[in-house]
Structures are given as structure tokens and as C-alpha cells.
């Protein structure tokens, strides 16, 4: 059984923009799936539909054998707990310490009152520190999150997502606001989480060189539709022009 099945998923925004047009694909356990396409092709909408931050207009999402397209309330929160997410802008709480930010990944398993009073179970503290070690910044646990560099902040965001012990990790342009050297650092941690921790990853990416290096499979979106599905090696120059348009030139990131 596949981990995730997306069937004929469509999204029309209230202003009439059709962001997704009947998108269907499956994701097997352990995959590192890259989603490519121009800005505005529907990549971000797709990721946010998967964990229901955005409500799809039609179609269905089946996760781990269960239809999650219309679940609400506690069921939706339990579903989201199984799916970590990282963002282009990291979305940390800058005024809080790194450790507090990582602990926020466990909010779903802490009561509202305990979380507001900062009472996290000791094992969550241990886990948070271990996750910071995994991404190599345990020494920064007690500094303010906004004092870190971009790459470090994205690693904190990864540690926060790991607190959920996710079955699936959604990464929305995780390196788009980082410089090339830092990008590889962050991507390597994602690769490590994928292979060593067995976490399935769906990652929106701009750079094909990163796709070729880290992804096990690729889908390409254009105007909200899947126009390519296959392995990274299969993206030839012709496919590239088809996905990105005739004027596009591939830029490499080393």
C-alpha cells in the first residue's frame, strides 16, 4: 500500500485562479519525491493541500490507507501530526530560543495549558536536543532563533518537524532563500532523514541539479497539471524546455 495517494485533486481559489487541475499521483514509502515547475505552477498549493492547510476543491487524498480529504477537528490534527513541514521562510518564532522552537513541533501531543506554561515532558526535551544534534546545531539550543543564519534556521525548522516523528515530510522550497553552499548543507540533512530515518519526503525545488542529486523521483507541474513524471535522469533538454518554457536556461547549483 502506498503511503500517499492523490486522486484527481483540483483547487480553485476564491478569486478564480485554478491552481491545481486534476492532479493524481502516488508516493511510496521511503521515496524522495521532488516537485518542480515554474513559480505559480501550483507546487505550494499542492503541498498545502496534502496536509490540508489549504482545502482542495475536489479530488481525494488517501494517507496510509485512510481517506483524509474531509476529516476535521481532532482527526485532522492527528493526521497533521504525522506530517512534518518546512518552509522557504523557515517560519520560526524569532523571539523564542532554538530549543523552544524545536519543542513547538510537539505541540500536538501537549495540552494547550501545558504548552502555554512551557511545561513539556522531560522526554520531549531529550528528544528536542537529540534532533538538534541530528541537524548539527545542539550548541545553539539556548540562543534566540532570529540570531541564527538562514541555513541554521532551516535546520532548526527540520529539527522542529522531526519532533513529530513524521511519516512524511513536506518541504516547500526549503533552499530557495539560501545561498548555494548552505543549500547543499540543508539538502544533505533532508537526504539523511530520508535514508537513515526512513522518512518519506516530498520537496518543491527550483534547481534541477539539486533534484538530480537528491531526489529518487520527480513530478513536474505546469499550469496546475502534471506534465512529467519519472526519474531525475529522464529529464532531457526537451523535457526541460517543455516544463519551463522555451526561453528557460538551466542554471546549476554546485
Amino acid at each position: 500500500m502506498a503511503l500517499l495517494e492523490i486522486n484527481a485533486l483540483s483547487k480553485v481559489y476564491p478569486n478564480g485562479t485554478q491552481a491545481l487541475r486534476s492532479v493524481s499521483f502516488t508516493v511510496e514509502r521511503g521515496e524522495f519525491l521532488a516537485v518542480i515547475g515554474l513559480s505559480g505552477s501550483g507546487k505550494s498549493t499542492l503541498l498545502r493541500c496534502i496536509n490540508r492547510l489549504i482545502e482542495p476543491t475536489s479530488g481525494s487524498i488517501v494517507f496510509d490507507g485512510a481517506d483524509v480529504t474531509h476529516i476535521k477537528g481532532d482527526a485532522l490534527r492527528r493526521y497533521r501530526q504525522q506530517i512534518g513541514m518546512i518552509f522557504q521562510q523557515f517560519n520560526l518564532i524569532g523571539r523564542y530560543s532554538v530549543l523552544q522552537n524545536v519543542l513547538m513541533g510537539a505541540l500536538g501531543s501537549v495540552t494547550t495549558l501545558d504548552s502555554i506554561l512551557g511545561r513539556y515532558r522531560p522526554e520531549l526535551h531529550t528528544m528536542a536536543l537529540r534532533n538538534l544534534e541530528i541537524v548539527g546545531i545542539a550548541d545553539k539550543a539556548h540562543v534566540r532563533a532570529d540570531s541564527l543564519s538562514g541555513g541554521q534556521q532551516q535546520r532548526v525548522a527540520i529539527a522542529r518537524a522531526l519532533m513529530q516523528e513524521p511519516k512524511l515530510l513536506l518541504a516547500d522550497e526549503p533552499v530557495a532563500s539560501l545561498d548555494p553552499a548552505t543549500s547543499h548543507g540543508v539538502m544533505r540533512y533532508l537526504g539523511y532523514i530520508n535514508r537513515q530515518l526512513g522518512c518519506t519526503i516530498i520537496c518543491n525545488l527550483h534547481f534541477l541539479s539539486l533534484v538530480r542529486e537528491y531526489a529518487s523521483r520527480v513530478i513536474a507541474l505546469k499550469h496546475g497539471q502534471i506534465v512529467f513524471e519519472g526519474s531525475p535522469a529522464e529529464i532531457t533538454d526537451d523535457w526541460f524546455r517543455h516544463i519551463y518554457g522555451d526561453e528557460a536556461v538551466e542554471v546549476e547549483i554546485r
Partner: protein
Amino acid sequence: MRKRLSQLFLDWLACTYGVVLFHRIVWLEVISARPLPFAWAGSGSATILTTVPDWVLYAIVGAVGASIAGFTGASLVALLRGELAPNSWQRRIALHVGSLLLSLTFVTGWIVTKISLTDMFSSERLRAAGRIFSSLLTPEFSILPQAIAAIIETVYLAFMATALALPASFVLSFLAARNLMREHQWTRLLYTLLRIVTNFTRSIEPLVWAVIFTVWVKVGPFPGMLALMVHTISSLVKQYSEQIEDIDPGPMEAIASTGARPLQVVWFGVVPQIVIPFLSFTIYRWDINVRMATIIGLVGGGGIGTMLNQYQMLAQWHEVGLIVLVIALVVWVMDYVSARIREALL
């Protein structure tokens, strides 16, 4: 079509306004120099058709004007909407009509406010002014202890109004923030209701609230505090909720994606982004409240304002002078301190 109709309607309002001013002010007051005191109501008794009330005639003449404007295109509303071509004769005429209305308004304002330079600068009036200014400038220092006690009451009154308004405003501001409330129809309804109520309560001046509360609870600092509190809540809810609407939605998204509950999303995704501006608004509000509290005392809201009112009724201007001095000092100090604290926060 709707646009044409609204243009016609607004042109009619403008024309009727012009006709009313022209007849009531220019014709009756200035040209015929009617001996009666000026009033908007009643018959002008100079109209041609004595059987028809003046106001009906005004409306009819206004409608004629609006129709002419509609046919020729020389419409004031079209001018304000920027629809008239530059250098067209319609635009020139509309501009003339506009400036005529503006001058009529100014003349009317002059007559309605009963501005009289002869009253202000007659030797008798100037002597009275000299008397009061010289008294104010030689304050009576013997009542200083009472004045200090009263202003302390005022400062505490302002502080309590702010402190009690703070938690209520904090909670309500989240319910009055569009970005948090637009998801479901019930929360949207609550948002709309809250916006209406706060806009309404805010548009009522604290002075009027004080009058209401002095009837409800008896005269003293308590009704003054209540009046300031109500006004503070509605003002802070507006400022707070606008701040909430301005936040970066990213952290909220991140917290929601972990499977957190709605309250946790607000506490971790929203609150850290707004504490500092909230503190700054609150301190500024306390500063405003100290100033307002002195005024509220005039209608029985306690503190230095009540004391000022008493001495002013007795025409003891030296004492009034001291009280004004004390108020000015405290307001200046509050202003300075609050500005420095807000600077340090931001």
C-alpha cells in the same frame, strides 16, 4: 447605470445644498438683511409660492440643477471622480460650481458660528481677558497639596482604566482580527458584530460616557474610570486587531502544520509577533487617558478635573491657574516618559 444614478443623486444633494445656502444665507441674511436672528427652520417668507414649504422648493430647484448637470456633463460628482477631460468646458463649469459651493460654505460657517471681531477686541472685553490672564499667571500656591492629591487620583484613575481595559481588549482583539476570523461563517459573524460594537462605542466621546456613568454609579472617580475604560477598550481593540491583521502568516502556518490546536496556533504563531507593539500601544493609551481623565473630571468624573471645575465656578482664577499649571506639568511628564518607554521597546 448604477453609477449614473448615484451621480445624479449626489449632484442633487450638492445642488440642493447650494440652493439652501444661497437662499437662507446670501439672500435672507446678507442681501435682504433680515432683522430676525438666523435660523435654519421656519419659513423664509420671501419665497414666491407661499403655499409650498421652502424645503420642497429647495429640493425641486436642486433637482433641476442636477438634471442640467446630468445632461450637459458638467457635473461636480463627475469632476470629483476624475471623469471630466482636462480643458473641457464641462470641467471648467464644474470647477466654478465647486468653488462657489466652497465659498458659500465658508460664508455660512462665519454666520453660523457668530464670529464677531468687534466682540473680541472691544476695550471692555480686552480688560476682562487681561484680568483672567494675569490671575492665571499668578497661581495661588496654598492649594498645592490638594491639587497634588487630586492629580494623583487622576493618574491612578487613568492607570486603572488602562489596566482593566487591557485584558478585555487583548482577548477581544483576536476576535476582531479579520485574518483569524474569516474561516467560518459563525466567526465571521462574531467579527462583524464586534467591529460594529467597538466602532460605535469608540465614536461616543469619553465625556459622554462619563455623563452616562455618573447617572449609573454615583459621581466621583469611579464613573470617570468606567468611562475611560469603555473608550480604551474600543480604541485598543481597533489598534490591537489591526496589528494582528498585519502579522506574517508563516509562523501560524508552521504551528498549524504540526497538528497544534487553534489556541496553540494563536499563542505561538500570533502572540510573539504582537507583544511589543501591544505594549507600546498600551503605554501610549495610558498617556492619552491621563489627559482625558482631567477633562472627564469636569463632568463629575473625579480627580483634578472636578477640582478645576469647582474653582472655575467660583471664578477663583488664581486657584484655577495653579491647577492648570499642575495638569500641564503632569501631562508633560507622562508624555515624555511614555515616549521614552515606547522608544526603548521598539
